[in-house]
């Protein structure tokens, strides 16, 4: 037994309590704030964003808008007065998420009977009956507009696809697919550094790639006036939104 220096009997030290790391709690810590909640930089009164956010939260309470990124395959059913069953279902890959506030949009692309179709849906449009996420995967880029100039096999998705089951509520998997393109000319010069695309397998000669680097603007990442730090805003808005949605 241990002898203390004072000669008094040693005080009983209870063993340290085991720390239980609850995996469920860790899972909930993963935050996702939809990008349309973050207000753009400008001279508008913050009251306008607050009121818009209230409307957006109200709509989310009634209608579930799932968490999705660019590159996910979604199925959207809208109410259509001219269709047979008054509903219209479209499946496609999300190539772009734009707009802020109530006017937020996302573009779905699919190739149906050899014809490329892109539909721009508004997230808060009351005519949307359901949004289902069929396949979860993030891609290397934020903007997949280059799929228009890629081979059509990369944009075709089965209309009656079954939703791929998701095991853990952990990380969203990133698909590092390098897409092969149709021969040039393309709708935009995707090889230029302005678009900063990592998801294309450029089969262009070295000379063309070097020439494209002439248009690079390396000073842009050091421009301080372009910095828009949204971390604190995001925190505040995330807390506000999650509290409102829990009610």
């Amino acid at each position, binding site marked *: 037994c241990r002898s203390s220096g004072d000669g008094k009997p040693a005080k009983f030290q209870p063993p340290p309590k085991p720390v239980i790391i609850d995996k469920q709690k860790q899972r909930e810590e993963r935050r996702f704030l939809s990008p349309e909640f973050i207000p753009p930089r400008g001279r508008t009164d913050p009251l306008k964003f607050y*009121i818009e956010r209230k409307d957006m939260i109200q709509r989310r309470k009634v209608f579930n808008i799932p968490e999705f990124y660019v590159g996910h395959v979604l199925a959207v059913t809208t109410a259509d007065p001219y269709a047979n069953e008054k509903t219209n279902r479209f499946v496609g890959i999300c190539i772009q998420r734009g707009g802020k506030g109530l006017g937020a949009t996302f573009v779905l692309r699919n190739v149906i009977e050899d014809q490329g179709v892109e539909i721009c849906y508004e997230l808060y449009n*009351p*005519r*949307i009956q359901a949004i289902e996420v069929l396949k979860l995967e993030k891609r290397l880029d934020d903007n997949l507009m280059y799929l228009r100039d890629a081979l059509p096999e990369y944009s075709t998705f089965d209309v009656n696809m079954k939703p791929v089951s998701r095991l853990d509520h952990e990380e969203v998997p990133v698909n590092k697919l390098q897409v092969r393109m149709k021969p040039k000319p393309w709708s935009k010069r995707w090889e230029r550094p302005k678009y900063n695309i990592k998801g294309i397998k450029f089969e262009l000669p070295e000379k063309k790639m070097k020439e494209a680097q002439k248009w690079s603007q390396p000073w842009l990442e050091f421009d301080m006036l372009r910095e828009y730090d949204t971390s604190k805003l995001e925190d505040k808005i995330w807390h506000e939104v999650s509290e409102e949605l829990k009610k």
Partner: protein
Amino acid sequence: MMPIWTKSGKKHAVTLLKVQDCHVLRYISKEESGGKTSKLLVGGKNASPFYKSESAMEIFKEAGVPRKQKVSTFNVTDDAIIKPGSTPLYAAHFRPGQFVDVTAKTIGKGFQGVMKRWGFKGQPASHGQTKTHRRPGAISTNKAAKVYRGKKMPGKMGNIYRTSFGLKVWRINTVHNIIYVNGSVPGHTNCLVKVKDSKLPTYKDCNKNPPFPTFFADGDEKLPEDLYDEEVFQFTDPSVTYA
């Protein structure tokens, strides 16, 4: 500006206007002003009293109200007179379904040429044009021997009062005093704006039961936080379906 959806699924763009500390400043009777109706001077947003002379501040002292950024006159009939100073004006003075005219100073563009200011076509870019691509060209005829008054020429553009008529009020927020008005409104964001009942003959009988002479907050009527027009889709309802 925000989108708003109707129950039939159509989308309209809407401008938000906030009613900020509006008070009635003075009553001018018909004989005093010399017009056809009596007038009421109304002041808008609160501002600092230190940047104006004593004589300018007299109106505000008389009414017992802090200095207002903008003062405008409204022609009012005799039964709609409000006592100056005590009663503040709220957004609930307007009701959804009403039609409204909005006046404001347009965005100033500075000294502008004739193509931007008046929409002239200019001249071609090539085919031998010497130093003439955005000029007005001829300004009068030979026989006139003068230039007429009001000839469209380059000059200062914008920063003048303009009105958009017949804008529908879709929704009113009584807590924050916000009016949702259809379409766009002249002026930049956060500029001061004058809202009046519409003078267009098609909307003469549109106001069914407006609060007359104005909406009093300490009265008996307790309004809900949001007042919607009948056709507006409220986000508490489920999604729109076509039966």
